């Protein structure tokens, strides 16, 4: 039995497919309830941290980014049902490619524009030179 044959016997699942079909709606509803609870906790933490003085101020943006990425993960797993199972390989690969493009686009833009900004002459100086 080759690996290829093994793969083709596994049912694929579309993104958004429920975990358990024909098993009563209890487990399926529970997945959404857990997702909602986790997302609510993360959102509340984000809003709390943004307005508090308890945390060292320069760490706030980092904390917000980490919380946002965690919440996106919660949404992907509990609402969109993207898992690491063998039936989900295609969905995960597409997601990985999307994340790669997003990281390149965001990181590249910010990096280049920060550099340009840094190397550009201050605007008032530029105006004086043109006179």
């Amino acid at each position, binding site marked *: 039995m080759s690996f290829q044959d093994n793969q083709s016997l596994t049912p694929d*699942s579309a*993104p*958004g497919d429920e975990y358990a*079909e024909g098993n009563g709606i209890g487990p399926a509803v529970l997945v959404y309830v857990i997702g909602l609870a986790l997302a609510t906790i993360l959102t509340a933490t984000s809003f709390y941290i943004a307005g508090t003085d308890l945390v060292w101020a320069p760490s706030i943006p980092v904390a917000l980014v980490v919380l946002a990425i965690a919440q996106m993960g919660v*949404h992907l797993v509990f609402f*969109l049902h993207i898992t690491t199972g063998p039936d989900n390989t295609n969905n995960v690969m597409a997601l990985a490619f999307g994340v790669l493009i*997003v990281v390149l*686009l*965001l990181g590249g*833009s910010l990096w280049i524009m920060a550099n340009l900004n840094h190397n550009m002459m201050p605007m008032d100086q530029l105006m004086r030179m043109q006179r």
Partner: protein
Amino acid sequence: MTAVPFSPDRADPNLFGHRPGGHGHAGVRTEGGSAPKRIVVGYGFWIFLLSDIVMFSAFFATYAVLVGETAGGPTGAQLFDLRSAGIETACLLASSFTCGLASIAVSVRNKLWFYVAMAVTCVFGLAFLGLELKEFASLVMRGAGPSRSAFLSAFFTLVGCHGLHVSAGILWLLTMMAQVFAKGFRADIERRILCFALFWHALDIIWVALFTVVYLMGASR
């Protein structure tokens, strides 16, 4: 494990789920054949969503670059109302949850719960849109419209694009309710509902990035 013999009656390997016995629903992929149509449709829509997210990331990059270019005008910290943003976030999160309940109702073929869950999703979505429009109107009234500064142009583009997606999602939601009413839970209608649910959940993911980058970071800046 035993090998599944190749079945000669699957003549066209590219039928994409159009089996001789009708549309493939939740079937297992057979040897040498393609995935059921539901899987193919869901996967294709997933790729569209990822490209949509890539488009949003370009708007995010634009916003992040221009966030300091206020041209002497108001900054985000002076304009944003975190209370309103918090209520919008709660509305969208709740609507994402009820949308999930609607897809469970589809999987157990319960029309009543499908209509109820979709209607609640619609109400939360409309509440979100209403709050956002109110915020936009108040910004324009205060002279902080999209033409005031590069920062505000980027803000209205990014948040407005998400709002447009939500509006399109609400139209799609109403269409799905009407189609289930007129045609019932047919296989093709079910695939459309699957795509709608993916779309709605993806909008919530984009909003998570949006309220973090725009509102929370903007207010603490």
